[in-house]
């Protein structure tokens, strides 16, 4: 004997399941444009059948179906692609920030142009050549003093433009430390909620989407490695050290650097040990702030100090128009304070152009002018070659960064395409599904009606003979 109301139960299960399917479809459509959303699919499956009970079975066809149930709501995601996206996010973060920093440095350098350090050097040597030919002329001497001042100021200015960039990088480091800490806390909270849901057998799909997004953000900022823990929780590591583990997160703190006055160093809040990052925006900022820019500052300082020393060396051996001798031409130590000797600025007759004291002798002026040919800089380079190399180096680094940014864009785009292909919502598909589920729902309602009429036949109209 079959169950009387079994049919209605089957239809009822169908109604419920398809209603859920419709709801999920509606959820997908609503989130079609939400970034990081992975589409969800209700995997409908048949409920366990039952065998018609009876001795020595079966009196009729057996293993009767009992309807449909929604099974689990699946989240369509490709874990491999997600892992790759996290990996690439580190590189994207690193190169994008490096590219920006190098563009700013290039702007500070003002090359190629006729107003940068190179042009200032050239004009300074030229004015000395004129001095060699006409050392008696006050006008020519004034030009020398003027060109020297321009050179000193241009070198100083170029250096001073780099300091704000370094400061900005430092600010960014501080900002990122806060951001990463906050993200870590959010991931920890999500971990807890996900673990709770999984413990009772639910699939916290939207929470998982949200957590994936947060991890991606952390990766872009500071590089992140993900390790799975039990109950669906994860641990996130930065540079090999734990940021989040399960429901526990740690903080990154930016402390004032004891060795460098207005900069900061990053340490872990709880242990005080320094933070090591090797990818992401943070790595780029730290590298720029602590390696690239200081090296650049050192090179410019070296250029200035060598200019000061060599010029003064030659100049001290000469005699001015007024008989003065042994004066410095440039004062200062390096690019922070290079300037023309105020005594020369106030009286250009103090410029020592002559070797013998004769007013028409420009031997010392010539020697000064010839300094531009001397390989006085590191690596046997002239002033011009050394500066050229500085510019070139920045250009090459900048070119590489720009190329890597483009490359990363392409890689990222490709990965996003793959992710979108698996996890993205296709509206046409959802529409079609919607129609499918709608029909099934309508049909199920029909089944209920039919069952109802059938039972009604038995209940209301059976055995009513003659009434």
């Amino acid at each position, binding site marked *: 004997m079959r169950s009387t109301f079994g049919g209605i139960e089957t239809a009822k299960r169908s109604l419920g399941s398809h209603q859920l399917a419709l709801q999920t479809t509606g959820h997908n459509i609503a989130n079609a444009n939400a970034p990081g959303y992975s589409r969800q699919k209700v995997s409908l499956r048949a409920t366990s059948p039952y065998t018609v009970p009876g001795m020595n079975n079966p009196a009729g066809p057996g293993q009767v179906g009992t309807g449909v149930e929604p099974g689990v709501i699946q989240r369509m995601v490709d874990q491999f692609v997600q892992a790759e996206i996290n990996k690439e996010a580190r590189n994207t973060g690193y190169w994008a920030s490096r590219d920006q920093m190098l563009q700013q440095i*290039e702007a500070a350098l003002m090359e190629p142009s006729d107003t940068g350090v190179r042009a200032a050097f050239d004009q300074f040597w030229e004015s000395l*050549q004129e001095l060699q030919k006409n050392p*008696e002329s006050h006008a020519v001497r004034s030009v020398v003093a003027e060109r020297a001042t321009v050179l000193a100021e241009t070198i100083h200015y170029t250096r001073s433009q780099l300091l704000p960039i370094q400061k900005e990088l430092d600010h960014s480091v501080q900002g990122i430390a806060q951001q990463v800490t906050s993200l870590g806390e959010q991931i920890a909270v999500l971990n807890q909620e996900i673990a709770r849901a999984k413990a009772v057998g639910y699939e916290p799909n939207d929470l998982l989407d949200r957590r994936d997004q947060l991890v991606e953000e952390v990766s872009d900022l500071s590089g992140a490695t993900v390790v799975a823990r039990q109950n669906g929780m994860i641990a996130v590591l930065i540079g090999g050290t734990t940021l989040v583990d399960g429901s526990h997160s740690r903080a990154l703190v930016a402390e004032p650097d004891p060795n460098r006055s207005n900069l900061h160093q990053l340490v872990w809040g709880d242990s005080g040990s320094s933070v090591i990052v090797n990818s992401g925006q943070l790595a780029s900022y730290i590298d720029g702030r602590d390696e690239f820019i200081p090296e650049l500052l050192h090179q410019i300082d070296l250029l200035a100090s060598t200019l000061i020393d060599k010029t003064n060396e030659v100049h001290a051996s000469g005699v001015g128009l007024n008989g003065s001798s042994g004066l410095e031409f440039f004062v200062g130590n390096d690019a922070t304070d290079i300037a023309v000797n105020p005594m020369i600025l106030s009286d250009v007759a103090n410029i020592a152009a002559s*070797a013998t004291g*004769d007013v028409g002798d420009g031997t010392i002026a010539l020697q000064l002018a010839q300094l531009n040919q001397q390989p006085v800089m590191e690596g046997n380079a002239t002033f*011009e070659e050394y500066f050229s190399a500085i510019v*070139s180096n920045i250009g090459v680094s900048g070119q590489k960064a720009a190329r890597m940014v483009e490359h990363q864009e392409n890689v990222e*785009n490709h990965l996003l395409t793959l992710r979108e292909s698996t996890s*993205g919502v296709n509206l046409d598909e959802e529409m079609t599904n919607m129609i499918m589920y709608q029909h099934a729902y309508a049909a199920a309602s029909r089944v209920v009606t039919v069952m109802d009429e059938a039972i009604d036949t038995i209940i209301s109209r059976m055995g009513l003979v003659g009434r």
Partner: protein
Amino acid sequence: MRVTHQLVSQTVNHNLGSSLRRLHAMNDRLSTGKKVRVPSDDPIIVEAGMRLRTAIGQHEQYKQNVSDAKAWLSLTESSLSQIGEGLHRAREQAVAGASGTLTEPDRQAIATEIEQILADVFDIGNTKMSNRYIFGGTRTDAPPFVHDTDYEYVGAPGASTSNDDSRSLRYEIAPDVTLQVGVHGDETIMPIIESLQSLLHGLEQDDTESINNALVEIDDAMDNLLRWRAEIGARMNRLDLAEARYSDDVISMEELLSTKEDIDYAGEIMRLKLEENVYRAALATGARIMQPTLVEFLR
């Protein structure tokens, strides 16, 4: 591969972005006429450009030095030429004065003329160029030839000694190559002054033998002068060659600079047209495929 609407939009966006980026770069190049704006555009071209600019500047400077040297030498040359003319006339007079047939007044007349020539020589010897004495070596602020009322040379604060090289005026006309501009007064003009003074004494004392000796001195001084004028001529030739060479070099370097840095307009505009077409096609197809969805067709 499963394609979704967001994917289509993303791709359209990405491609439009790339195309727009290329158009932007092209626009940049066409408006500035330069291939590079910042070192990272092409570090090699930028470095070459910097080197060339510096080299062009240096060559222009050397050209200027050569030109200034030529001007100095030119004035020196014409001054010596004037002195030479005076000396020549003096010689003629000396020959006349050596003859025994002249009377006392005649000899006086000749002496007066010689005195005049001597005065001229002193004047020319103190020639200035832009307020600088040209025959005094590095002592350009004091006259190299000073005389008393009898046109006796009394030395001078500006007198240059030719055997002291530190007193020579030198200009750099090429890296580490200097040329002496100007000549020392003592080598070129002093012999002339001395010979004229000898002549003068001889005339005043009516001493034929002295006059004849003076004639010999004058001849020697003349030879010396010619030798020095030839030397100056040789230096001028050298400078002419250098000037021409620098002019040529500057032109080639400027051409090279332009080749490296400037864009090829024709090529760039063609590429612009191509890219424009690509951009338009991307826009059109993007618009066509992004819009229709199934929703429009369901009742």
